[in-house]
């Protein structure tokens, strides 16, 4: 599944979810989404970085330069309280809607 297939609202939700456990840099966020979705979801970088900046601009994330576990300089993103609240709210909504959509699609097949 290509990155562009992911609706931007969904991508942002996934980013917030991945960052809920710990702060990560951009590359690691993409890898983590891939890993947790068992390689099904791959996020295109051209979508990921603007999304990160948007979330930061909106105040859901904070970002500062730091070191990756390999010791390389990278921008590390941290979930802020506001982002955590949004995650909780949007996650419930997304899950209930996708359940409903899945049900319809099952019936149709």
């Amino acid at each position, binding site marked *: 599944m290509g990155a562009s297939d992911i609706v931007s609202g969904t991508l942002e939700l996934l980013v917030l979810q991945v960052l809920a456990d710990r702060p990560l*840099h*951009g*590359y*690691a966020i993409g*890898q983590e989404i891939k890993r947790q979705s068992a390689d099904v979801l791959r996020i*295109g*970088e*051209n*979508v990921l*970085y*603007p999304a990160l*900046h*948007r979330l930061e*601009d909106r105040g859901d994330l904070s970002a500062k330069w730091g070191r*990756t576990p*390999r010791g*390389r*300089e*990278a*921008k590390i993103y941290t979930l802020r309280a506001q982002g955590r609240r949004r995650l909780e709210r949007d996650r419930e909504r997304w899950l209930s809607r996708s359940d409903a959509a899945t049900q319809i699609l099952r019936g149709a097949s």
Partner: protein
Amino acid sequence: MAESVGRGHADPAGRILSPGPRGPDRDHRREIEAHIAERVDDLVAGGLDRTEAERRARTEFGDPGPALDEMRRIAERRLRRRRLLRALDELRIDLSTALRSLRRHPLHAIAVVLTLALGIGATTTLFTVVDRVLLRSLPYADANRIATVWSVDSQGRNTSLSLPDFFDLRAGSGAFESLAFIRGGSLTRLDGERGASRLGTAFVTEDFEAALRPKLAYGSLSAFADGGVSEAIVALSYDAFLRHLGGDPGRVGEVLSFRDGGRRLVAVLAPEVEYPLWADAYTPLREGDAEWVGLSARDYRLDNRAVGRLSRGATLASARAELLGIAERLARAYPDTNREWGATAEPLRDLLVGDQETSLWVLLAAVGGLLAIAVANAAGLAVSRVMSRGRELGVRASLGMPAGRIARLVALESVLLSLVGGALGTAVALAATPRLTEGAGGTVQAAGTLGVDARIAAVALLISIVVGLAAGALPALLGSRTTLTQRIRRGDSSRAAERTRAILVGTQVALSVGLVATTVLFARSLSTLQSVETGVETEGLTVSRLTLPSEYHGVPERRRVLWDDLVRRLGDDSAVEAATVVNHAPLVGTGVLSPARVEGGGGEVVPSVWLRMTGERFFDIADIELLSGRVFGSLDHAEESDGVVVSAAAARSLWGGVEVLGKRLTLERQLASDPDFQSPIEATVIGVVEDTRAQLRGEAVPAVYLPMRVHPWTSAYLIARAPPGPRTEEAVRSAILSVDPTLPIGEIRAYSDLATRSIQRDRFVASLSSTFAALALLLAWVGIYGAMTFAVQRSSRSLAIRIALGSTSRQASGAALRPTLLAIAAGALTGAGLAAALAPLTAALLVDTAPLDPQAIGIGVATIAAVALAAGWLPARRAARTDPVEVLRD
């Protein structure tokens, strides 16, 4: 490598590594580079060699361009938002600084607010009037094409035109696409329990709607187009609709009953429709109606109007030329009635607002002067404030506050004060406008109750801001320009401030002199009007006009009995000392003219005289002085009497002198509209009385007085010698009801009110202008006082040194105050020039008063000198009492 690959996607390296133009962009590139490096590490860990891994990583990433663009957009948006927030924050801080500083100096704040409230209040009030009367569009579709049509007499005066002339003008004119005739008359409405009431009525021809196309509140005028043939209809003015039908729109369509039958109410005109001014009702003019009587006479030029809509392409000039051509043809065809008569057209707009236009513009100019004085005053006060805050502002500047922000801080205070002043001023306007409306009369009054609406409030707000900026600009400039050291040492800057203040004082003085001088002219013109020899005493008299219904036409005997009864009943009332009647009272502005021939006076032009049919005791009650002969005795009121009394002006115009007792004259006819008044009256002069005027703002008219009992008129003013008031009104009402309960009762008013109506505008202008002048003087006093106090304070050190070095205190304080005194002198001189320059503008409003009057200007200068003296005395004394030791120690 960079050269070998196409631009589109790959050489990402080249693009990424090239240094970004701006900080955020570079940051974004670094972030992407970090991403690629991490990816390379992962790929290498997976077994790829580093070169291949690098190539793979970049290919996977693709062209970073779009992502970079998007990131830049986000960053820019963020930056803009931050800037705005910072600006708002600064403004908030400045605002609270300004508020704090104003709170610390409440006297300054109060002085500025009051000054501006006065200026803005007066300006808003007057603007409300000007807006309503002059700026609003007229309530008629395409009103600029509407013109009124007039006959022009041999002296070039526009007068009412006759119906036959109207028909000929309409038939011959191509310049008008529609032309309507309006006959002034009245309808008597019968309304069950409320009895009969009279409605001033415009009887109109079928073109009425097409010509005027007035704005309507309810209904439609289309039924007027068939001339009321299919159904009797009526339209009401909004005012009459409120008075008679309580403003209930459900009653439109109802048949209203009138003495001469029912009429269906088809329309109510919009409140602002005011042509003709006296019309309560509009109804088609039908042949055979009472109003039609007499209209077929070609020389019946009374109470008729014509109004038309110019064709597209026609101009007022072309219409006038055409009308004049037709009038010349008519003069040849009907020499008896039309010789020397012309015709012309005037824009409707002139008729509706022309009378008020000049006076309102002049008053607006005056109030503009007042506002300018207020601004100069506020600016002067603010300049002093800035200077006395020298240290504070200096410290701010040295702590790094940029000059622009200091200027803003100072200007902000001024705008804040001005807004408060504006709010207060608008409140003043709200309170003052209704009173102004009462005083204005005429068109202003007809425009309805003036309120301060949203538009006016917006104008007041705009004025407040502009005034605040104008008053704040100078001090802001002075406050931001000077350096810290200057401020702390009180050096040049305070001299610059003093100069600025002097200029501001000069401006105030100049404007005040102009205003005072102009006001003196208006006051003199008014007093001229009020002191004219009117020849008639109006005080203590109450009048009511009574128009007899059609049953009284054609039966003079019935009218004679009616007037007799009426006067007797009214005179018998204990509230009334004496009573009489007259068909047209002096000074009320109306009358009937009759051509008068005298024996031996067979000239080409027959002079016209004003006919006054009078009841017994008229001369006594109106206190018109007898010059020679006698006034009517009871015998003269007998039917066969042919005695008349003439006014001195009539004697001069008919016989060229006042020795006219026993002379004979023939009044050719009295009223062309009424068969009762067609036959010539042969008369003998039995007395000469002093002159009276038709109206105050006019000249003495030649009048011939006849006994009402001999020539009973169809309408008259009832005159009661009794103080105006409810008791007298009741007496008049019951007298009328007792002789004929179906008679329509009109307004009952003080004769003096009616008589001074024609000078109401002069009173309005004079009283408003003197209010403005008084306010201007008050503000100038505050301004001069402030400037002098400031000058004394500023120069206390040099004063002290001079005194310590041996100057007398008088010399020393003279030196300190010299700049302000010079400014006052220069201002007074400029003001005299200003007053002279304003002369042509005011000339149109003055009666028997020269617009360029050295005496008036002298009064202006003297007044301001007195004000300056009063304002300067205290500061000057303080200066003279300067104690050098105390000041120098400080």
